[in-house]
């Protein structure tokens, strides 16, 4: 289990206990957190589960695969700290992770 904090674009804070092995995307979708569309269902094929990872966490995460950076080209307002939340697998190490959800996914 890891506590993941999702901050939506209206600055609402959602703290969710997410099971290990799920993705940060699934944690959001299963708990009805608005702003994560995940159209392709986690296949790294749509860039609609885009999140901004807070700086102190960004470098602790597993590195991006090539395909993820390619998909981020298509995301809505990508930044340096952009990730696809379907590629972030929850484990005890992610306990305390904070992600910001963009105002739109497309």
């Amino acid at each position: 289990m890891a506590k993941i904090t999702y901050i939506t674009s209206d600055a609402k804070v959602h703290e969710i206990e997410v099971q290990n092995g799920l993705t940060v995307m699934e944690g959001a979708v299963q708990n009805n957190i608005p702003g994560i569309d995940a159209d392709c269902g986690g296949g790294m094929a749509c860039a609609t589960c885009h999140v901004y990872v807070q700086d102190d966490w960004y470098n602790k995460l597993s590195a991006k695969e090539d395909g993820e950076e390619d998909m981020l080209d298509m995301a809505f307002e990508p930044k340096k700290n952009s990730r696809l939340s379907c590629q972030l697998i929850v484990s005890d190490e992610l306990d305390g992770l904070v992600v910001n959800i963009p105002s739109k996914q497309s």
Partner: protein
Amino acid sequence: MIKTDALIIGAGPTGLFTAHQIKLIGLDCEIVDNLDKVGGQCIELYPDKPIYDIPAVPECTGEELTKNLINQLKPFDIKFHLSERVEEVKKDNVNWIVKTNNGKIFSTPNVIIAGGVGSFEPRKFSIKECEKFENKSVFYSVKDKKIFEGKTVAIFGGGDSALDWAIELSKNSKVNLIHRREEFRGAQATVNKMHALAKEGKINLFTKYQMTSVHGNGQLESIDIKNDDDEKKNLKADYALGFFGLIMQLGPIANWGLNLDKKTIEVDTEKFETNQKGIYAVGDICSYPGKLKLILSGFHEGALAARACFKLARPDEKYRFEFTTTSTNLLKRLGKKE
């Protein structure tokens, strides 16, 4: 008005196999898709990615799967209506009347929605003001390249479309190519060609930059771009082209009176029928307890929806289940028997 036993919306793998099942049991069908080609997500999102969980096919790419499904439809005469988006589904006395954005009208007792996550639409610039210039000086595809001759064009994106158009338009226009990072995901040969043109000064390349605002009065005049270090530039621009790939939008489906759960359509698991009699949903777009978004689930759902169509298309006949291995009727339809 086109009359058919069943209209399938969506030419992805589920729509294609559903068509197979409909033709196999002796009904007619036509297929509408918003894309200009057959294959849906398999072709648009992952043509080269291998898929490993199609039963009896250990490994195949999205493109190969699509080709095989099209091959499987060869015995049948199926009319495809591509680049057509269904806008409206309404009931007359008996049938569903389906209208597309280009004015095609279908009359059918059965509508099968195999629409994935909706229709593919181009992703747009995130700057709201771009809407004012859309289809005048801001475009997401090129219909007539002549309008760019002698003009200054800002091209955004890092894939093949952005690169191909930057190379092509650099012959007769002043091209600024802007991309959010240094790496381009287009074909290596195209990336090399673009860099060569940039070296010759035929293309002005701005990497790590993104658009921040647009200026102009009716017609676009200039754009502002900013890089990761907050350095800003103002570039003259008669036109801006954005190539950020496609996004899936549920679109008009939301207005057809169907029970929706988020972006999916609720169905039963006997006929895969929605709350509207004669409208079915199969594949990724349908939801029911235990739904898996797998291609193989779409095949099963389509096979059952096809049988359900029979009752409404042939109310006076009785559907009889048959195997392709033994049924003379089915073998005739497949062209394997005279």
